């Protein structure tokens, strides 16, 4: 089954504001993280999700307490969209003790288990097996929970993709495989690396395969809604491709010398935020005053997240040795350091 979904037709004002608020939070958060990175305040490297907000929000808006998600290496937005505290998230990206993982994960491994967000695996495709197992746990317990595995189109050619989808389809596990198709694996375009039609991948496993406009939050939400409902009701897994061309570099600092500048500009112009504003305004769901208020509130949240993170302490060096094993009785307590 292939569905090119159009935007859902009915939408309440509160829904529109909720979706916009989260998309805007992700955008401003990512802009702030880029700025901090450029000021050399973030160790390591970051992969901002600017331009992916519609996918993150469209999918996560449908999830409930008890559901589980894994983000990609471009995962700040997916975590925020699941309700992770922006201040704790920014502190984690800065490697501070107050971060979601006490500074052990950083941008690449973003997670927050109390929100059902498994620490991301920046090994492309690294979350496919684990999330399939989480779906197995939901099925085993018959708790109507759903797993959502975000991954990029680069993961389509990992063996883990085939093994996971085959297992989930064979056992009818409650999972949505959400492929954020940005068209690029760092410098290699998908057309040069990936054989066949994308949705044919779903057909191979006998599960629904759909394509959504990844720059349109209502389209993303509309397509994901059927897949998540299906999973929750025991109907098994689905695979959705969110068409979401990459407007920015693979990571912050990637100048994309390998790409046609016109292609980059085209991708940037398909910006999900102005699109959502325009569409919601046309439907009389948001006024200019409400938009200004939303921008102001979001700036305040992001500014206070940055302040919190910047003023947070680094972790104590001695804590580097903690949490190697959950169970110290069979852990390395007897290993001399």
């Amino acid at each position, binding site marked *: 089954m292939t569905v090119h979904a159009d935007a859902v037709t009915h939408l309440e004002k509160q829904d529109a504001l909720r979706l916009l608020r989260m998309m805007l939070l992700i955008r401003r958060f990512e802009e702030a993280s880029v700025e901090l990175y450029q000021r050399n305040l973030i160790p390591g490297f970051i992969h901002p999700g600017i331009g992916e907000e519609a996918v993150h929000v469209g999918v996560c808006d449908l999830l409930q307490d008890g559901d589980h998600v894994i983000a990609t290496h471009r995962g700040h937005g997916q975590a925020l969209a699941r309700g992770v505290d922006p201040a704790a998230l920014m502190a984690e990206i800065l490697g501070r003790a107050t971060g979601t993982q006490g500074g052990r994960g950083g941008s690449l*491994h973003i997670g927050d288990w109390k929100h059902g967000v498994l620490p991301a695996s920046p090994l492309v495709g690294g979350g496919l*097996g684990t999330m399939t197992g989480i779906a197995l746990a939901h099925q085993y317990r018959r708790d109507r929970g759903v797993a959502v595995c975000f991954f990029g189109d680069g993961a389509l050619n990992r063996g883990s993709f085939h093994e996971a989808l085959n297992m989930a389809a*064979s056992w009818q596990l409650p999972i949505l495989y959400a492929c954020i198709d940005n068209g690029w694996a760092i410098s290699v375009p998908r057309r040069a690396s990936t054989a066949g039609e994308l949705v044919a991948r779903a057909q191979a496993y006998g599960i629904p395969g759909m394509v959504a406009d990844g720059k349109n939050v209502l389209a993303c939400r509309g397509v994901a809604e059927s897949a998540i409902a299906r999973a929750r009701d025991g109907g098994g897994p689905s695979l959705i491709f969110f068409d979401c061309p990459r407007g920015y570099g693979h990571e912050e600092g990637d100048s994309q010398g390998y790409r046609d500048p016109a292609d980059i500009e085209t991708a940037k112009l398909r910006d999900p935020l102005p699109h959502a504003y325009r569409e919601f305004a046309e439907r009389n769901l948001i006024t200019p005053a409400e938009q200004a208020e939303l921008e102001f509130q979001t700036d305040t949240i992001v500014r206070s997240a940055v302040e919190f993170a910047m003023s947070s302490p680094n972790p104590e060096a001695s804590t580097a040795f903690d949490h*190697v094993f959950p169970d110290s009785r069979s852990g390395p307590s007897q290993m001399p350091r």
Partner: protein
Amino acid sequence: MPQLSYRDAVIQALDEEMARDPDVFLFGQDVGRMGGNFATTRGLFGRYGPDRVRDTAISEDAIVGAAIGASVCGLRPVAEIMFSSFLGCCWDELINHASQLHYVSNGAISPRLTIRTVNVLGRSSGCHHSGRPEAALMHIPGLAVAAPADPRDVKGLLKASIRSDNPVVFIENALLYGERCEIDQPAPDLVEFGQARTVRNGSDLTILSYSGGVRIAVAAASVLQAQGISAEVLDLRTLAPLDTDGILRSAARTKRALVVEEDVRTCGVGAEIIALLCEQVGGDLDRPPLRVAAADVPVPFSPVLEEAIAPTALKVVLAARRLAGEAA
């Protein structure tokens, strides 16, 4: 006197833990109706049904990945990887996920899975069914590794693995499945990780081993006894954690130590133990410690070739005599 076989110890441990805890379930290739490639899940499919004893596709990566995912939600999956050589197909899940999720989540997540797998050496199984990956596994921070030799330990350690919140790789040994021990007294329900077992007391040297190596060490110790050399044999039982105190105590007493391992020599279990001895009690030893390991070659098919690369009782006797200062 009642007896327990190494194979029945596996079955009993799985059965008892499944009966005790509905969150324990099994999956892997052929673990269901067939009862396991080595008959180590025999009877469990009939008793617990297809939801709790699941046959899987040949997808080692997904098997271990799914076990990790199910376990972080609180279940206690026991996944079987039919031969330890096949761990190569799911290595990413072991080294990057099972071993790291607890740490990278700052302690919020516990991947409490058990992976059962099987070492084979000495049965002409060829190089893709003769894996001994234990040294590589104990090299990974965050993985617990058990490699028992004795049926009682198999049962107690497997039950402890399933109940532990740690990710455990539980290495069985195909050549030992038929081994029996007499149960002269009720076996302990659980065997603690990180506790070596003295198989045989001795005073002239300590032979340290695990899994299939223990049988070789014990055979060599009998030969040495007849030659007037008293060898202590220590079964390490678990490699991560390692019973460093027990190793150091015995070696400090006999002042001579020899490691027997079926894994290859370079960067092996013996290398780690000998480094430990040198760092901690080096000056107290009478002689530099030695090791008898498999040679640094792939495992050949021909029984003649395979024996040439494997540790044998004869090789252990010769090394022990050298260590004891006797002419070989």
